[in-house]
């Protein structure tokens, strides 16, 4: 039963990533795409944790931590870049 509920949750998160990817494609501006990218990486973090549960490997949590750190740094750099003249 736990596996079925987790499969449904993973499908919902993948659907959410697809919808956010449309915003990343059609976003009319630079900052809209950055917001969509920020939300997309956080959803990808949950997918990595889910995958680590299905493959029974604890190493995936380290991958998720480093990926979250890198995405935070990337979004921060882009936001700092946007405050200057684009």
């Amino acid at each position, binding site marked *: *039963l*736990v596996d079925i*509920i*987790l499969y*449904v*949750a*993973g499908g*919902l*998160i993948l*659907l*959410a*990533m697809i*919808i*956010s990817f*449309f*915003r990343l494609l059609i976003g*009319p*501006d630079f*900052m*809209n795409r*950055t*917001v*969509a990218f*920020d*939300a997309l990486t*956080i*959803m990808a*973090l*949950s997918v990595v*944790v*889910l995958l680590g*549960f299905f493959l029974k490997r*604890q190493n995936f*949590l*380290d991958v*998720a*931590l480093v990926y*979250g*750190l890198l995405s*935070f740094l990337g*979004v*921060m750099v882009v*936001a*700092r870049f*946007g*405050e200057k003249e*684009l």
Partner: protein
Amino acid sequence: MLAIIGAIIVLLGAILLFIASLGLFRMPDIFNRMQAGTKATTLGSMLVYLGFILIEPTWWAKLLLLMVFIFLTNPLSSHALARSALFQKLFRAKLTSAEIKQETGKKYEDASGDTLDWNVANAVGDGADVGNSLDENNTAGVDGGSK
């Protein structure tokens, strides 16, 4: 039993992430998109990690570290993005009826104004849509402004 409760909490977090992506796709404005796309994803991902703490209790340390990390860094990046978007003077949707009326009145005055071109085109479409749902008196003015 603990695993089932944890799985239900993970499903709740997945539903919150789905609602966040829906708001990110549907909202008319960058600040509304940021509101939907960062607050709801923070709560949703924290619920997902809390559910995995209940499912696999031996993974609690790294999952707790991830929860604290998301809780600290996600509002920070959202704040930086909002400040950058405010600094660039991006398009802001007119949501209340007074703002719509003020927008249409101002648009008649400075037809050769200094607002950005795609901003005006966007504001007319979105304002007409919101005005229909909010107040019936404003739709005539908004439609007149669009033509």
